[in-house]
């Protein structure tokens, strides 16, 4: 299978993330006020469609990787799944015992937490274990920052169009803040490492 270029992966991921944000801003809020149950269901699952595309994109990227990359991807996904499984078990037992009060909306976090765990595990494997780099170069960081800025602007544009920043939109902005901080911290870390290397 032909290798999946990073450029192609990034551009398709950007399209999926913009579609996801558009669905979250414009379609999903309608599910709360929809009268009929079938319509409510339809509107509620619309944001899942871009995420299914992202899952397919990741599957294609992994299957088009070479043997070493596949090993790293699968080890990272395995570690992340094991961590999430353990957390779910602990949370489930605590909820069943009445110690924690969890509702169904917590399931929304399963996919993002899996992806965060996968990212951290992949970084650890590539950088700490195999002594290489993540390929997270300056262009990649600039792309990630650009995408985040674009998504924030989308939220602000919809808020401006509707004349108010709703709690939901504020929640989306707050949710993106940690991602922006991580990207900025990585950019700063790279700059400091480069500067210390030049000394």
């Amino acid at each position, binding site marked *: 299978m032909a*290798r999946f270029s990073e450029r192609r992966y990034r551009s398709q991921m950007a399209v999926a993330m913009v579609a996801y944000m558009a669905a979250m801003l414009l379609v999903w809020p309608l599910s709360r006020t929809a009268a009929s149950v079938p319509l409510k269901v339809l509107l509620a699952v619309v944001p899942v469609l871009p995420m299914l595309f992202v899952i397919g994109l990741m599957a294609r990227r992994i299957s088009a990787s*070479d*043997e*070493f990359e596949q*090993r790293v991807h699968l080890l990272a996904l395995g570690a992340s799944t094991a961590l999430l499984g353990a957390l779910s078990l602990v949370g489930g037992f605590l909820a069943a015992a009445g110690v924690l009060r969890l509702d169904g909306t917590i399931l929304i976090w399963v996919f993002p937490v899996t992806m965060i765990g996968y990212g951290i595990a992949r970084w650890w494997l590539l950088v700490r274990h*195999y*002594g*290489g*780099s993540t*390929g997270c170069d300056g262009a990649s960081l600039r792309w990630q920052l650009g995408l985040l800025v674009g998504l924030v602007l989308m939220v602000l544009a919809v808020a401006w169009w509707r004349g108010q920043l709703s709690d939901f939109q504020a929640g989306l902005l707050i949710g993106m803040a940690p991602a922006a901080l991580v990207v900025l911290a990585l950019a700063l870390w790279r700059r400091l490492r480069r500067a210390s290397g030049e000394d």
Partner: protein
Amino acid sequence: MKNQVRDLRGGQGWSQADLAERLDVSRQTVNAIETGKYDPSLPLAFKIARLFGQPIEAIFEPD
């Protein structure tokens, strides 16, 4: 396993990226093989051996 990939690549004057392109793998993969952190599969080991025109046992040896 120990291997001579870094020396053989240096002998050809290739960068890790050059070798990666010739083997159709990533630069990270070449780096992991050269540092002995990753042992390639048999098909990839044969590919490396063919590229440098040497038998596998001349390039890879057990620790």
